[in-house]
């Protein structure tokens, strides 16, 4: 128990606490901890007011919200549909399952680099395909990765490519737990496939869906790798079009050495996660918690 506790305390709890402490200072990260360092000065909540008046950071919050909505309305239903399809028995479904799940083990960096090439303006796969089928007019003048108004959606598409198999696997596991008798009974009673889905499968998948929503939102909050690589070298994209909180934090903390300000951004990320997680667990997942692996408080 002790080694685990020591590791957890030193490398998880203390850094999170330190982020809170740092966030009250203006500090370039040098000359000892803030408060001691000559280069630091106490600014109280100054970093936080700065963040909320910074148009880039406010944009991060908005973009995070957009990504979250897109994930919940497009990515998750897509994964669910696919999971239900692959639940049915047909030849080759094991292979499809493996195929759809494979992108999950490919790192975000590799996915980002690969799609950077696929989406590039000249000699990219997507544009060549579009031109060869006569849809060349769809190609944006500045390219898929260079057009501010669509970059966030392009990034979302790539994120979906990597993660929909992950959610699909979770849904498939949830679907397998639904006893066959239930769907069969409904069908015997003359329910259409849609009715079976709507009134039997979907409600019984409720706990599973609620978990994937949770994972999806937490994932969006800390999104970094994919955006960093996909929008390189101008990470965040032109005009911060696909910038996330973690990228803004990185820019200020590790490039401009505004450690206090970057810490404030970390703390805001942390608070968003915390409030979301506690609220979600308390109000949405309450009934599901019993018996789940994530049982909190024990039985």
């Amino acid at each position, binding site marked *: 128990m002790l080694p685990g506790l020591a590791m957890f305390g030193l490398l998880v709890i203390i*850094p*999170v606490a330190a982020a809170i402490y740092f966030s009250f200072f203006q500090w370039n990260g040098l000359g000892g901890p803030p408060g001691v360092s000559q280069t630091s000065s106490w600014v109280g909540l100054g970093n936080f007011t700065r963040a909320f008046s910074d148009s880039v950071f406010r944009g991060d919050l908005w973009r995070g919200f957009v990504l979250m909505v897109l994930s919940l309305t497009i990515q998750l239903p897509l994964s669910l549909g696919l999971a239900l399809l692959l639940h049915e028995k047909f030849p080759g*479904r094991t292979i499809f399952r493996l195929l759809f799940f494979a992108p999950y083990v490919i790192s975000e960096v590799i996915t980002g680099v690969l799609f950077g090439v696929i989406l590039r303006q000249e000699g990219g796969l997507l544009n060549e395909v579009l031109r060869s089928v006569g849809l060349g007019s769809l190609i944006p003048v500045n390219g898929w990765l260079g057009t501010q108004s669509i970059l966030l959606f392009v990034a979302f598409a790539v994120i979906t490519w990597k993660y929909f198999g992950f959610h699909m696997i979770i849904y498939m596991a*949830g679907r397998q737990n639904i006893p066959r008798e239930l769907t069969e009974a409904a069908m015997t009673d003359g329910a259409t496939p849609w009715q079976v889905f709507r009134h039997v499968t979907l409600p019984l998948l409720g706990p599973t869906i609620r978990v994937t929503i949770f994972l999806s939102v937490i994932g969006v909050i800390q999104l970094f790798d994919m955006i960093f690589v996909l929008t390189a070298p101008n990470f965040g994209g032109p005009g911060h079009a696909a910038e996330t909180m973690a990228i803004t934090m990185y820019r200020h903390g590790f490039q401009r050495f505004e450690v206090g300000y970057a810490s404030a951004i970390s703390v805001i990320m942390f608070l968003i996660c915390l409030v979301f997680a506690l609220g979600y667990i308390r109000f949405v997942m309450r009934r599901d918690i019993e018996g789940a692996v994530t049982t909190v408080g024990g039985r």
Partner: protein
Amino acid sequence: MSHIPSSRRTTVAASAPVPGRVATGRPPGTGRPPATGEGMALRRRRQRWRNARLATIAGVTALVVIVIPIMFGVIGGFKDPGQLQNNPLGLPSPWNVDNYVGILSEGRFWRNTFNSLFIGLATVVLVVSASALAAFMFARYAFRGREVLFMLFAAGLMFPPAVAVLPLFVLLREIGLLSSPWGVILPQAAFGLPLTIIILRTFFRGIPAEIEESAVLDGCSTFGVFWRIMLPMARPALAVVAVLALVTSWNNFLLPLLVLISERDWWTLPLGVQQFSSQYGQDTARVLAYTMLATVPALAFFFVAERQIVAGIAPTVGTKG
């Protein structure tokens, strides 16, 4: 009753040379449920026929969405820059193996792979050994503050590493672990603890207490129970958490980027790929070759350990569903 038309349709379906036939080709009269059950069976057959069509759709989608981008990368690696620019869709002519051969004969790629492997395995050993004992105690011993302590660990699930990475960086700098692989290994292990402990605790709880009790009666010590009974029994669960921790470490980018960027000899694969792609940005074919080679270990591992990966992800869903 709509039996007749549906049975006709099934006959047509079953005689058509579709893959679904194997599944539906049950000899008539064997093990068929009576009366309404028959309608059910027919209905299920009809559905399977529809599924065969759906399977085709799924297959085509999988091909277009998953296979083509990856094949584009793999084949692109066999082109020279001119070919990739002028003929992105077609096959390379001639096939140019220089990119792959060049990368494989340089030390850099192997060094990246070795580093990823070393950092991953060290993380796994640390996180699993630290978690197993803790999970065992959480599962089996009542001690003061147990629930509070467990809540603390469980709460760790809500801390995305990105939140702590900045002070972690400062801390690692102070204790001299910057530019050292341990600066990546130790924090990764620490952030892996919550999930590992939770999964293992659940598993240990499922082991019947009688087994332990009889071991104790036979004179086994507490640690003996853990070491000789619980750990061997938990082997499947240990495999799951180990695989999960390895995949997470293997794909980690932000922490290695911050800690190891100035230590080229310790770059991991993701860091190596990112650096390679910014260094050789003009030579896209070469970048593709490097990137695709970097996916090989992950994909190979995936096909071997798919079951453990799935088992590690799926139970987060709650086995009681």
